[in-house]
């Protein structure tokens, strides 16, 4: 724990240094968010996004993001990308997969394939894209396509840090694959100032995971072993 805190402090110092050294922004703020469920447990794989009407649109990164298929699971479980980001779907298993999405944000299908498809899939609209595999019912993955450049995913400790925020007023929201209710309703106004981080707390209600069981005789909606 102490080591982790020390690590986090180091990261904060380095980030502050990077921000300070940034030529575009001389002074930025950040948001430290904690997401927990209604029983107080930290929630991982939650995406905290910070938006502002005046904020610039997200700039797609140069390198494609990667959603692996490993051991018949999507890795990571939740991938966060800025809108317009191409995502590669390398298959690291020795069997084929059939990745598909019926989500309105990105409808696509990668029929049975091995290895990495030649062209990555470009996620050009913001929203949540649910990924499935036609031949492995339990495989489920999420691509969170953010319309804002300010977003972060919580770790196992339920914490996410959204940095490089120019001072100003924003709205912060949280999304999680299993959250109950509308993500829009999680909106919190924040005033970002340079220097001290804003601390945000999100409490989300989680639905039980609804997935096909991985083992034929397994429990109904068991969490896959990754």
């Amino acid at each position, binding site marked *: 724990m102490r080591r982790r805190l020390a690590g986090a402090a180091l990261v904060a110092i380095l980030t502050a240094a990077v921000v300070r050294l940034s030529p575009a922004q001389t002074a930025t703020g950040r948001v430290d968010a904690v997401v927990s469920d209604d029983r107080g447990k930290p929630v991982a794989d939650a995406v905290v996004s910070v938006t502002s009407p005046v904020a610039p649109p997200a700039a797609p990164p140069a390198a494609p993001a990667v959603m692996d298929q490993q051991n018949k699971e999507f890795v990571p479980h939740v991938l966060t990308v800025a809108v317009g980001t191409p995502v590669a779907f390398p298959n690291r298993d020795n069997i084929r997969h059939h990745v*598909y999405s*019926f989500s309105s944000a990105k*409808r696509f299908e990668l029929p049975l394939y091995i290895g990495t498809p030649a062209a990555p899939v470009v996620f050009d609209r913001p929203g949540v894209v*649910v*990924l*499935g*595999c*036609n031949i492995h*019912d*339990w*495989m*489920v993955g999420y691509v969170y396509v953010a319309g804002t450049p300010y977003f972060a995913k919580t770790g196992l400790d339920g914490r996410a840090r959204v940095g490089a925020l120019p001072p100003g007023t924003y709205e912060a929201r949280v999304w999680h*694959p299993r959250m109950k209710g509308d993500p829009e309703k999680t909106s919190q106004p924040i005033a970002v100032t340079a220097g001290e981080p804003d601390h945000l707390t999100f409490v989300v209600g989680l639905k*039980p995971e*609804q*997935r*096909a*069981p991985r083992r034929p005789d397994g429990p*109904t909606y068991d969490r896959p072993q990754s």
Partner: protein
Amino acid sequence: MRFGSFRSRLVVVFLGVFVVIQAAGYVVVAAFVRANARHAVEDELRLASTLFVRQLEVRDHELVTATRLLSGDFALKTATATADYATTASVLENHRRRVDADLLMLVSLDGVIVADTHRPERRAAPFPAPRLIEKAETERDVSDVVVIDGRLYRLAVVPLLAPEPIAWLGAGFAIDDPTAAELRRLSGLHVSFVSRQDGRAVVHASTLAEPDREALARQLPSRTAGVMHARGGEHLLRLELVGRDVLVVLQRPLAEALAPFDRLLPILLAVAGTGLVLALLGAVLVARRVSEPVLTLAAGARRVAAGDFTTPVRIEQRDELGELATTFNEMLGGLREHERVRDELERTARLKRFFSPQLADLLSAGDESLLASHRREITVVFCDLRGFTAFAEAADPEEVMQLLHEYHDAIGPLVFVHDGTLERFTGDGLMVFFNDPVPCPDPAARAVRMTVAMRDAVQPLLRHWRRRGYALGFGAGIATGVATIGRIGFEGRLDYAAIGTVSNLSARLCQEARDGQILVSQQVHAEIESLVDATPVGPVPLRGFARPVVVYDVRGLRAEPGPPAAQRATG
């Protein structure tokens, strides 16, 4: 007749008891069999319902599995996800045929029907079993028996996962009469599916005929088991909840379980009938055995009434009746003894007519073989009154009777004093003989002595009657000869008679004798010559005798110290 009815009463009582016992036995057996059959049916129903429910669970699981298999179809997911309703409906219909379901429905996540193979027009209507969807959100095997459009369906609901749920797929299999019939083939029980709607039972599918369905709907018990009155009699029921509002009713007619008993019934009746016949025979035998001694005693009593004291009743029993018979026989002995004594007295009295009392007693005590017919030489005395016929005609009857009375009183005792046998009285006449039935050494002497004594005895009477104007006299005749002697006459009127010439001769001699004369035959005279003073009376012609016979008139006894006469007179 009374004993006949006594016997039939015995038989009736015996048979009545038998029939009551048989009937009671039958009632007990029938009740036992019925209770047993009931328990058997209840056990059977309990077991069957367990198996039945288990089977329904298995079927439900199969149904859910099949539905889930359909839900995995990528084309269905694609069509659904792309909101291509026509294609979705077509895929559904295709899949319905694959699994031979009666109903496939695709339902949106908010519970609205997207496509319905059974009623396509139902699109956009709310799903009729929203509860199942709620359940399917947290459970995996979700199925229930539900009523849709008034029909009963086994309905499974699974999510359409892409890979998150994008819709619900419902698959239904109708539960109808053929379904019930198939279940009946498996269980042998009547199967009915009943829903409760608004507190009312509705029979949706059943193996029962229409009237029994209505009866079931009316009589459906609230508990899990019960009884229903169907057309064929009582049915035992068992209820199992197979859906939230749907019951399956398993039932079996009690009559089916009682069928073996019904087959047994004729045998039981035959056994009972045979028993009844045997009981009847036994009852008759017993009744006869009981009444027979009574009848025997009655017959004995009738014989006694008829005067037969000799035949005892024969009852070989060591009981009260046997004792009664013994007493009866002892009574018979008493009666016989009584009669014997009476007979003896009577016989003695009868003998005394002929014989002296001593002789009569002797004869009475001993056997009467002395009186059997035989021939013997006897001395016969005949005597009578002279002039009696004229007297009897002229005198008053009272006088006649009085005279005879005095006469007999005077001479009668002399007969027995001299041990004579009185053969007969004929008015004034008297016949006495000697040497029979008990022989004596001097019959002629005795005869003469008796006759002389009689003549002496009547003299005062004769004098008396002569004074009164009646010319009466005494005469006698005595003869000795062989005669046939024995009893003559008929039962109740027997005489001891001596038949032969000697009787005739003495009678003729008596006829010949004048007053005071005692005429004896030559033979008699020869025997008593020394005892008497007698004068010969020349040969006398006698009627019935070829030649005149010589007779003697005994005048009197010689005075002699011979004691016998004196002794006899006093003895």
